[in-house]
């Protein structure tokens, strides 16, 4: 290559390290010609859009539940009055209006318990006791019938409490089932292994909506007529059985990450298969996949929105209920932005938490097929 000799011969000064806002802009905004073009296009778009968005969402918007003021806006600005008017319907669904303090208290209890469970320093035995109190308290508050609370049938449960309930049930019950399935899939017994593999792959191959259809249409046909199981329980069972297949793959990822030596060491000190799993393998494997459990929590939280399709009024369904009011129907965009913001806050928080936990727990396994 010509020029190489000169390049070797001529000594050059070391590159100067530049600092300051101008140097930052050169590197991050105007490094190359395409980059400069992109900057100009983006800056122009933002300069045009931001004032309009601000005018639509903030300065021009109507904040009170004033229907006439909202109608005069004619889409030129947001009518947050829809949210102000309907927020209790959106957040609590068809739950009887005067009793809505009960789901509120219940949800706050659960959120507080979740907050307490977030830090690894709190992963002690008392946490189990906390949940053993909080979950029944939540169900009692929602259902009533004792302690002088009016009974509220599960068909009326709705909104955010329903979303949270389905998520918690779906995740917490699917973990033990998933552990059993994962162990069965790695078992040496061929029939057991085949049964577990078949279940996991079949469930992972079909959409959640078909499982919800089974829960809503087929399950009542398959149970004895005397056994009246309400829709909520059936749907919760459907979500749990669906999620269990994904949990099994998460747990299997953790099991596969453990070196063979762990099994061999346990065998050499004479532990039985059960003892090996319970004392050696599972404690390590499950800790490894805790961040994945949090991610599952997140995806179940979003997946519960599908129960809307089988006529339950979770957060998404309750929004559609609120939009059923012909007076306010035109302000659907505000409603969707509000509910979207609620979902986003919860999910973004959970995904940040999962990333933090992952760093804190130090080790991580990533394996295709274990994450969705």
């Amino acid at each position: 290559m010509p020029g190489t000799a000169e390049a070797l011969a001529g000594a050059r000064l070391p590159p100067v390290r530049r600092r300051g806002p101008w140097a930052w802009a050169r590197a991050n905004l105007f490094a190359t010609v395409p980059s400069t073009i992109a900057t100009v296009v983006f800056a122009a778009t933002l300069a045009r859009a931001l004032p309009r968005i601000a005018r639509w969402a903030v300065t021009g918007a109507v904040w009170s539940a004033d229907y006439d003021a909202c109608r005069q806006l004619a889409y030129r600005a947001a009518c947050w009055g829809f949210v102000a008017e309907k927020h209790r319907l959106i957040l609590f669904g068809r739950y009887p209006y005067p009793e809505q303090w009960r789901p509120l208290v219940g949800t706050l209890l659960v959120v507080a318990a979740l907050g307490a469970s977030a830090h690894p320093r709190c992963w002690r035995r008392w946490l189990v006791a906390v949940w053993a109190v909080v979950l029944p308290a939540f169900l009692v508050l929602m259902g009533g019938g004792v302690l002088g609370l009016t009974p509220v049938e599960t068909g009326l449960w709705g909104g955010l409490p329903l979303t949270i309930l389905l998520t918690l049930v779906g995740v917490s019950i699917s973990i033990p089932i998933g552990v059993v399935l994962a162990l069965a899939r790695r078992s040496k017994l061929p029939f057991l292994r085949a049964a577990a593999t078949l279940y996991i792959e079949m469930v992972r191959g079909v959409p959640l909506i078909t499982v919800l259809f089974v829960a809503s249409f087929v399950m009542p046909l398959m149970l004895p007529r005397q056994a009246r199981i309400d829709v909520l329980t059936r749907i919760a069972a459907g979500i749990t059985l669906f999620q269990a297949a994904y949990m099994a793959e998460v747990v299997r990822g953790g099991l596969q990450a453990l070196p063979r030596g762990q099994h061999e060491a346990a065998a050499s000190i004479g532990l039985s298969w059960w003892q090996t799993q319970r004392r050696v393998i599972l404690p390590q494997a499950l800790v490894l996949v805790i961040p994945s459990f949090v991610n599952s929590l997140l995806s179940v939280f979003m997946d519960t929105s599908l129960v809307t399709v089988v006529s339950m009024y979770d957060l998404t369904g309750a929004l559609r209920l609120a939009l059923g009011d012909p007076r306010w129907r035109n302000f659907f965009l505000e409603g969707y932005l509000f509910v979207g913001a609620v979902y986003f806050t919860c999910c973004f928080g959970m995904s940040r938490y999962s990333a933090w936990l992952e760093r804190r727990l130090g080790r991580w396994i990533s394996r295709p097929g274990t994450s969705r």
Partner: protein
Amino acid sequence: MVQLALAAALVLAAAFLWTNLRENLASRQIRSGFGFLREPAGFAIGEGPVPYTPSDSYLWALAAGVANTLRASAVGIVLATIVGTLVGVGRLSRNVLVRGASTAYVETLRNVPLLLQLLAWYLVLTELLPEGTDPVRLAPHVFLSKDGLQLPVPVWARGWALALAALPIGLLGAWALFRWARSRRERTGHTPQVLWPALLVALGAPVLAWLAGGAPRELDVPEVTTFNVSGGVGMTPEFLSLVLGLSAFTAAYIAEIVRSGILAVPRGQIEAAAAIGLSHRRALRLVVLPQALRVIVPPLTSQYLNLIKNSSLAVAIGYPDLVSITNTAINQNGQALESILLIMSVYLTINLLTALAMGWYNRRVALVER
């Protein structure tokens, strides 16, 4: 022992559920079996590539549903891959605005449920757009309104049929050229430049056939009339919102896959490629891309499968996919078990076929180990 107990338990549970099912079906006077598939369905289906009338059988209605599912999924997969790749590359841009916008896109779309996004798309397309009598003109003869999107299409003529037939011949010719170039490189060490000739052959064959067929140029152009937009080819708001929602959502996941795939190629590989004198483009094509694809393909497969499964949410916005048609059928004849078994097996088959196809592709890009 354990296995015997498990098998016995499974058989007992199945027998228990089966007897209950028989009793319940008998008491509710619901028929069973797949005989209903041959009877006329009686309901209308809004759209689709399969010709269907309400007097056709249930089986044919389900086939129309499968066709609609596949149509929406195929368009969604193509769009999601394009957008996802762009956003994924944007996440690695050195330009802070591009990077920020891509990150915002990924984080927003991934943290809001797909169903909510689909419902919002649908309402935006059916409520905020102008009426069909006064559509938005996106380009000459491309109209968007509450009635959907209307595009011009060429009127079917012999020239188009010939062009379509010539396309595989052109592609075959291009492939033969590449094969020849490769064998020549392996024999002589010289690489003949065949990219442009190959493109010429691949595109030239259909163009020649089109010319030979009389070069038909007549277009079916949508026009605004007093009632609606007529003519051209239309896409319903249901189809548009399903495809837009699915691809926008899946693109966020694909972007993360693309990003991690590119990051997975060590810098040293690019430097080594430069050191042996490969041009930047050939380094990308021969060194970076094959290694990135190896990381990208397996998770990309599962995203494609997720998109196909998620297309079942069409039932919420009234796009007549397999699931919503089955839902209508169940409401009519009550044969839930048979219908759900059918859709589950269709999804399992689609999944299996996609997984096989992607597995074949994955083996082609996978590391060849000795």
